[in-house]
């Protein structure tokens, strides 16, 4: 059922009725990895909940596997998902932006007008790009130097792909990588790999220049082994300590300028900018000074508003990574805790799971695994568990992990959207 704005307004009139029938209202804001997972899990596990999902986009384009589009191994249709399955499951879809939250009245105001009332709110709106935090990088600059770090309508990842296709052989593709924390710790390095895969095949005299604000990164040894094995000298990664941190970008001149003033002229530039929780979180006073939301590690309830559970990249889940798998998995814990509270029960125990696969080549996969539990002062990784793929020349391991990554993508998107 897709609700028009007017019909959505009608929901406001319904609470007394639905309460009388015993249907508690679970409102989910954001139909991405956390939100779609929460809505579908709630609908299929807790029949007593009336589930409404607010999401402005008609279709969801995943960030995961977007890098494979750059490599030429996927098309945009392969990473675009419809909300039809969620509607068919009995979730009310409101195609709009949440524009404000009144935590005391338990209502969410919609950009298109009107408001929705809730008993429990699950917020999973993802990230915002901090325009201007990297001097020279604003929304206009993103049309020259795409970020391709939010799925949106898919136009950013397609722009970056077109730029790669249009550049001359022998050019330099610059990638600016931010300091921690940011969405998907290994994502920039998978992107380096997939751009290199494209260049090796189509523009072999070109190279990737990765300029990093850090000195170390996720799965570093594995990535660097893979780059050497697959792409030879085509990838240059420059750590912060060797003047890798980009301090300013100049889209007019197509230049990345580093901290110590080195100016790199690029054929294509990809800027992964500094980030914070999405605007609805920061604007509603739900974020700490860090820009991320503090939550209870057992229930994901906001430290600022107990009926609002904040999941996905928007919260400070450290040491858990900001990943799709964490968003999917923790969204279910948040829903289970919200449902338990509505039933007057105590929250279930929490155990959170993550695996981030990365493609170094089309059939060359590596992974990092983490299992986490709530602790007295935040999230705690289970000792002696998880970790990264073994290093060494292990072609069968790499081939299998690439195939497992494909199984992950197929499984997680079915878990979110049904089908």
């Amino acid at each position, binding site marked *: 059922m897709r609700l028009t704005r007017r019909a959505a307004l009608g929901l406001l009139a319904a609470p007394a009725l639905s309460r009388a029938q015993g249907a508690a209202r679970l409102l989910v804001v954001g139909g991405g990895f956390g939100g779609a997972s929460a809505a579908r*899990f709630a*609908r*299929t*596990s807790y*029949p007593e909940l009336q589930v409404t999902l607010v999401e402005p986009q008609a279709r969801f384009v995943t960030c995961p596997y977007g890098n494979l589009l750059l490599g030429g191994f996927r098309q945009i249709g392969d990473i675009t998902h419809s909300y039809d399955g969620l509607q*068919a*499951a*009995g979730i009310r879809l409101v195609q709009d932006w949440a524009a404000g939250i009144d935590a005391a009245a338990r209502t969410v105001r919609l950009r298109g007008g009107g408001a929705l009332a809730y008993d429990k709110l699950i917020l999973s709106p993802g990230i915002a790009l901090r325009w201007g935090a990297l001097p020279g990088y604003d929304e206009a600059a993103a049309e020259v130097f795409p970020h391709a770090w939010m799925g949106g309508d898919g136009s950013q990842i397609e722009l970056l792909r077109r730029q790669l296709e249009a550049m001359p052989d022998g050019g330099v593709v610059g990638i600016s990588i931010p300091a921690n924390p940011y969405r998907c710790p290994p994502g920039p390095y998978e992107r380096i790999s997939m751009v290199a895969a494209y260049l090796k095949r189509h523009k072999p005299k070109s190279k990737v220049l990765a300029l990093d604000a850090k000195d170390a990164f996720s799965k570093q040894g594995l990535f660097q082994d893979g780059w050497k094995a697959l792409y030879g000298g085509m990838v240059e990664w420059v750590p912060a300590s060797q003047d890798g941190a980009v301090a300013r970008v100049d889209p007019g001149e197509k230049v990345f300028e580093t901290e110590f003033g080195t100016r790199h002229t690029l054929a294509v530039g990809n800027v992964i900018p500094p980030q914070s929780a999405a605007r609805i979180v920061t604007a509603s006073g739900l974020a700490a000074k860090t820009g991320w939301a503090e939550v209870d590690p057992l229930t994901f309830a906001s430290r600022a508003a107990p009926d609002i559970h904040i999941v996905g990249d928007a919260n400070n889940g450290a040491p858990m990574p900001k990943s799709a*798998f964490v968003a*999917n*998995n923790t969204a*279910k*814990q948040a829903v*289970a805790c919200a449902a338990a509270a509505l039933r007057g029960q105590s929250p*279930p*125990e*929490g*155990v*959170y*799971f993550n*695996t981030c696969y990365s493609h170094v080549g089309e059939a060359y996969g590596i*992974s990092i*695994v*983490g*299992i986490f539990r709530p602790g007295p002062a935040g999230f705690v990784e*289970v000792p*002696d*568990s*998880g*970790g990264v*793929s073994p290093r060494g020349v292990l072609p069968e*391991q790499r081939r*299998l*992990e690439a*195939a*497992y990554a*494909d*199984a*992950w993508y*197929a*499984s*997680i998107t*079915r*878990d979110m959207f049904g089908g």
Partner: protein
Amino acid sequence: MQGMPWPIAVLLVLPLLGGAAVADPAPLAAQGCLGCHGPQGRGTGAGARLAGRDAAELDAILRDYRTDARQGTIMNRIARGYTEAELAAAAAYFAAVR
């Protein structure tokens, strides 16, 4: 509903389900498995099917991953993060999926 032709009975009952297919959800600790092994552990591509396999066999495999008695590609790293009770509950759930 006695005497009613069954398609009509079905039509009458369906709306009561609210349009949702409410299946038994996996235990929370086993939800992570669904991220690679498909809906209800029915398998997808290289993500092996877990559904309908013998509970004792699944449990033994998971314990062997945990102690490295069995070598997997990533399962050893995963199994070590869970308690024996959680692994047994996951095995029991997948075994019961038909």
